[in-house]
């Protein structure tokens, strides 16, 4: 049987202008990497059609060891408190090769 190990997957959906800030924060929190997918959508801040640079969303994923999760969530809450529009959710996933996610990006 396979050795699958539990990890936390944090997903953030927000405007792509926040991408650099999100990348910076996950770096500081010692994530081993991140993945960004382009998205559109709608919510309390209106429609994000993705047609122009001014209304494109990103779906930002990071798998992070649970001990580092809380710090990252602090950062995200801080952004939300400043007024930024973030949709944040955490999922339980089982990964192959967990050691991969404990080495932070050089």
């Amino acid at each position, binding site marked *: 049987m396979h050795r699958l190990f539990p990890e936390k997957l944090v997903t953030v959906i927000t*405007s792509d202008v926040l991408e650099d800030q999100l990348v910076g924060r996950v770096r500081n929190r010692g994530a081993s990497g991140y993945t960004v997918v382009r998205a559109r959508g709608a919510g309390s801040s209106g429609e994000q059609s993705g047609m122009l640079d001014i209304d494109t969303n990103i779906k930002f994923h990071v798998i992070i060891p649970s001990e580092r999760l809380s710090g990252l969530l602090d950062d995200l809450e801080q952004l939300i408190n400043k007024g930024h529009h973030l949709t944040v959710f955490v999922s339980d996933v089982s990964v192959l090769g967990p050691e991969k996610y404990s080495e932070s990006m050089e």
Partner: protein
Amino acid sequence: MSALSNLLIPAVLFFALGFIARAIKSDLRVPPDLAKVLSIYLLMAIGLHGGYALGKADLAMAFNSVLWAIILGFALPLIGYALLLMTRKVDHMNSAAIAAHYGSVSAGTFLTAIAYLDNLNIGYESYPVIMLAVMESPAIIVGLLLASWSRQRLAVSANGGGTAIIQRGGMGNGQLGGLLHEAFTNGSVIILIGSMFIGAVASPASMEKLSPFVDDIFMGVLCLFLFEMGMEAARRIREFRKVGPVLLVFGIVMPLIGGAIGLLVGGLVLDMSVGGTLLVGVLGASASYIAVPPAMRLAVPEANPSFYLTLSLGITFPFNVIIGIPLYHALAERIVG
């Protein structure tokens, strides 16, 4: 008469076509990156063009235009901010964010005005292009300053403004610097200034080789661009309910004020021809929907994006393209003639 002629310009007609397509809920889907690519092309083309002309232009005059572009970029947002607060219907942070858009300019409107002038065979100076490039940055800066200033006042009024401290803290540690950095390294500013520089230094022979791409197909690409922008404008105007009558009126009054000021600066201060004056008027009248919105999202997260996007893209942009330009043209003729 000029109003009529305006409506026979393919560029304007394509804007209308896109607007109608969305208004009647056509399933027409345009690839999400088309507008981005086209605007990069348009900025590059207009930059090369303007730079080439500037290469032969009067430096003192160029400097003068830059100076007045900066003045406009700082003054217009202040006027807009004051107006919005006077309405007592818009809070400080939204007022700051919205006002910043009107200090900057809309390349799409500017290019439509150029198409309009070309169509009437009216000449124009090259200085407005450099003003176009210059005006993004001051507007962003004023927006940031107005916002952080309002933030402090709010923090004071709210006794023990914990959040406000966070904010200023946030602003303090490098964020403000980062945003000033963005104001000056903004993508469209870079393309425009860079292309102008290249257009100014490149040999006439090499510019010759670029001409088919930069000049010949320009008007066609502009039509395609405005076609899509018409769709985006129609998409945004739907949300005008959200912004309410007050902002709706502002979205039409502010360009008239900015346009008038721009026309005076162009015609009397920089005394340009009718064509150049119209273009400066358009710089004053138009509101940015490329450089400023992302900056405001980052720096003024408290403001609601659907307010400033609906205003600049859904209301002021179509107003300028359809009604504003011929109107400013008529005024320009009065002022200059």
